[in-house]
């Protein structure tokens, strides 16, 4: 191989940096920390209530969840968790994609990620807000009363 056909050393530095006014990175960074902090309580509360507190996995069924969702506290709890965790996770995945994917592949992944996130946020929120606890069987006396009243 002669010197002529090797790529020139010291190729000029190609800066891909573009500076734009609104900077999502800073807000993303803050968001990761704030949401992460809140999620510690939300997720461990959730896990504790669902996996430990009832004592048995078998209890986890439609009736259990329905009972939970009819309580506004848990509705808001799970709603907050849905939004915080999904956006946290999606933003984290965005970082990963930016790190490891390049070119077209990157844009495809980013779009897929964005669409998935929005769809799931909408879906999850709809489920939470329009959920009808009277749809199925329950042994929760209070619930039965409410449903009967309808």
């Amino acid at each position: 191989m002669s010197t002529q056909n090797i790529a020139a050393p010291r190729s000029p530095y190609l800066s891909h940096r573009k500076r734009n006014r609104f900077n999502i990175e800073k807000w993303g960074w803050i968001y990761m920390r704030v949401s992460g902090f809140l999620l510690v309580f939300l997720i461990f509360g959730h896990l504790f209530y669902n996996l430990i507190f009832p004592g048995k996995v078998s209890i986890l069924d439609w009736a259990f969840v329905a009972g939970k969702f009819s309580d506004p506290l848990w509705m808001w709890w799970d709603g907050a968790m849905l939004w915080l965790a999904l956006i946290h996770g999606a933003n984290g995945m965005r970082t990963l994609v930016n790190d490891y994917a390049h070119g077209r592949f990157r844009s495809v992944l980013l779009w897929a990620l964005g669409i998935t996130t929005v769809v799931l946020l909408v879906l999850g929120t709809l489920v939470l807000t329009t959920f009808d606890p009277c749809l199925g069987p329950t042994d929760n006396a209070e619930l039965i009363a409410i449903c009967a009243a309808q």
Partner: protein
Amino acid sequence: MAGAATLEAVDNAGAPEAPIQAFTVTLNIRRFDPEKDAEPYWQDFDVELYATDRVLDALHKIKWEQDGSLTFRRSCAHGICGSDAMRINGRNRLACKTLIKDLDISKPIYVEAIKGLPLEKDLIVDMEPFFASYREIQPFLIADSKPKDGKERIQSVAQRARFDDTTKCILCAACTSSCPVFWTDGQYFGPAAIVNAHRFIFDSRDEAASVRLDILNDKEGVWRCRTTFNCTEACPRGIEVTKAIAEVKAAVLRGKPDIPKQ
């Protein structure tokens, strides 16, 4: 030095009067000659060394006695010029600051070029992208107001101490080329550039902190740091690089650096 695998403890190794005892050490060097090789390859060399020798001495012995084509940068030989950052046993070090006695010589010593910058030949990489990032953060004092008496600007001992750590940088690139985020696409400004920005952002005499904070508040700026601390571990000058980066992040958030008033 932190992180050295001190497996071979040689008595008195440090003292110059140490009994002269030489070891045969195997160096396994990742070589690449752009004029001959399509791909880098590894090559072994056996060298007679003393415990107090540095890896740089080993490289010199190879170059001067065995294979003159072994190519690497070096100048000062005592950790002050920043020429010879390389990956020694998987970690970024200066060859001239890594003593044989601090390495496990029962196994070969692996030596390869630093990662993330284009490989040019053997242990030499292209430093241009590194210096380009450095230049981008405006690494110079910006202060238009002249000191009143035409003498020096006044700076208190505490203000001077505020940025002391980051003035030590020798631009060796050990940090930037140890950063997993930098490896991904080489677009991240990198810890060295941020360290040098910190040097001025936190200098009470400087008047352009906000400009630099703005530059680093960028997609490729401080926010790309994932606090992996490889930079801090690698820095041969003992600069607390990650801490400096954290301080710059905090300064971006507050809109100004936290400098002592007095």
